[in-house]
């Protein structure tokens, strides 16, 4: 086998080993792989600013923020990092929020546990400052969201713990989409359209909608960003890294920045290697 052929046919087990090392080494205790600070992208800055603007508005800041936790454990690294940073931001700004899941049933418990972990140290109590609407099947969510947009208690009925939604202090005065200040959707699969279709306020100013998808889904959302239907977006783990930098509160995403960077470089390096091999082989033949 010639050198060119060898470059093109590296044993995939070496590739797997390299990938594991590049991703794993930065997470080892005591190891610090240097990585530059990220450049904050406009969509991340807009995401951050939208929450800041909501909190600084005396009327809108009293309204409910709906946080849609539409991911499962498969995308924890991306979506949970985004969600954790966002909840920290909402709690820092003393905004009240409600969690809702309608894609992956796992999201119900993931969101609930995350808020329960972050809440106590930030003065957030279930029922008082936040609540969870629980899980609703996706096939029926169009009708549920449409009902919620005009009749919130009628659409939600009970929370994740079985209590009547109207009995929770955090839901006091929340009757319809008019009483919602913002929607934030964390997603591992396509789920943003339903908010834009069924939760808009055509007769009033548009409800701010923020989106935090996985990196692979982000390109699909650019038309919505361009049209202004989305006020901001966090692009996967990279978006979470930038957002944590804006919050000045490093978390998991920041610690994963080196792995993410070097894994991208590994892929680019291997693609170059394969092409050099092909070029050498063509030249030889």
């Amino acid at each position: 086998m010639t050198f060119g052929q060898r470059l093109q046919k590296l044993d995939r087990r070496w590739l797997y080993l390299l990938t594991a090392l590049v991703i794993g080494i930065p997470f080892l205790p005591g190891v610090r792989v240097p990585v530059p600070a990220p450049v904050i992208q406009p969509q991340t800055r807009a995401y951050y600013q939208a929450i800041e603007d909501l909190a600084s508005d005396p009327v809108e800041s009293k309204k409910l923020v709906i946080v849609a936790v539409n991911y499962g454990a498969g995308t924890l690294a991306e979506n949970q990092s985004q969600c954790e940073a966002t909840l920290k931001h909402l709690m820092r700004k003393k905004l009240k929020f409600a969690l809702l899941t309608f894609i992956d049933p796992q999201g119900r418990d993931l969101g609930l546990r995350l808020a329960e972990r972050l809440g106590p140290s930030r003065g957030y109590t279930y029922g008082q400052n936040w609540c969870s609407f629980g899980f609703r099947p996706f096939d029926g969510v169009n009708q549920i969201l449409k009902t919620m947009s005009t009749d919130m208690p009628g659409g939600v009925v009970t929370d994740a713990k079985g209590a009547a939604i109207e009995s929770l202090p955090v839901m006091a005065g929340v009757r319809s989409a008019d009483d919602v200040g913002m929607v934030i959707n964390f997603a591992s699969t396509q789920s943003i359209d339903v908010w834009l279709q069924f939760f808009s306020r055509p007769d009033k100013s548009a409800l701010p909608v923020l989106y935090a998808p996985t990196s692979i889904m982000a390109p699909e959302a650019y038309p919505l960003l361009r049209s202004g239907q989305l006020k901001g977006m966090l692009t996967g783990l990279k978006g979470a890294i930038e957002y944590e930098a804006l919050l000045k509160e490093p978390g998991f995403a920041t610690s994963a920045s080196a792995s993410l960077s070097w894994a991208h470089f590994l892929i680019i390096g291997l693609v170059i290697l394969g092409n050099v091999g092909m070029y050498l082989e063509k030249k030889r033949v």
Partner: protein
Amino acid sequence: MFTSKAGLALAGFIAMAALLSVAIYAILMALPPKARKPLIAVVTFLSGAIYALEWVWPVDAGGKENFLTPYLKSFADIVTVLQGFALGIGIWSILTVHLKRVAQRRENWGFSVVLLGGILAMLIPYFLKDVHPNGYNKAIYAIAFDGAYNSLNATMYSVVAFYIVSAAYRAFRIRSIEATVLLGSAALIMLGQVALGQALTGWIPTTGFAANFRVENVANWILEKINSPALQAVELGVGVGTLAMALRLWLSLERGSYFEEDV
């Protein structure tokens, strides 16, 4: 009729719904096969018509609803109930198939034992946690959900990273102009996504004309000016196609092996 029920009233409604379901099923079975299809077509049309009408019917004066809007939540509940039936059938099917395999000691019956054990290992802690939410039951549930299920799910998804590396290495070859454009734009977007890549052009000023050549700005330009219009065009086509497909299903015009089978 569409308000929440509890206690005896709830039990009564469930019993009546079950009886009604049996009666409808019996009537359907008693009908000749030729009459079943038109009946299904009528039910399909009426179900779709409710949503279509609700969407286009003018709202009441000063209000946000029309006469159909209050029923939407109830229709959503019907969908949820139907999904409940589908889930029940799924559980029944998986249990019967794998219990039979274990009982008859068929090939790979050990995997079926693991599957059935997995179902019970998640099901029992979940119910225990809800029925008796003491520390012990919560801890068992945490082990099952966080320790096992979440970790396994995350692991399965993480494996994709290894395949992506291997596939990118084998597939991305500069064999044509199209492949070169694809490779070039992919590399630029990848570099623009990560801090190390952004650092490559970190020496270029962040303002002025030169800023356009910073890798993150090039990546954003590709995503906004090339990817975005292309996606909008694709989505428009998909939207028109979906509308046509929905109309065919709604009006029972769809043809094909599944739709032409006897029911």
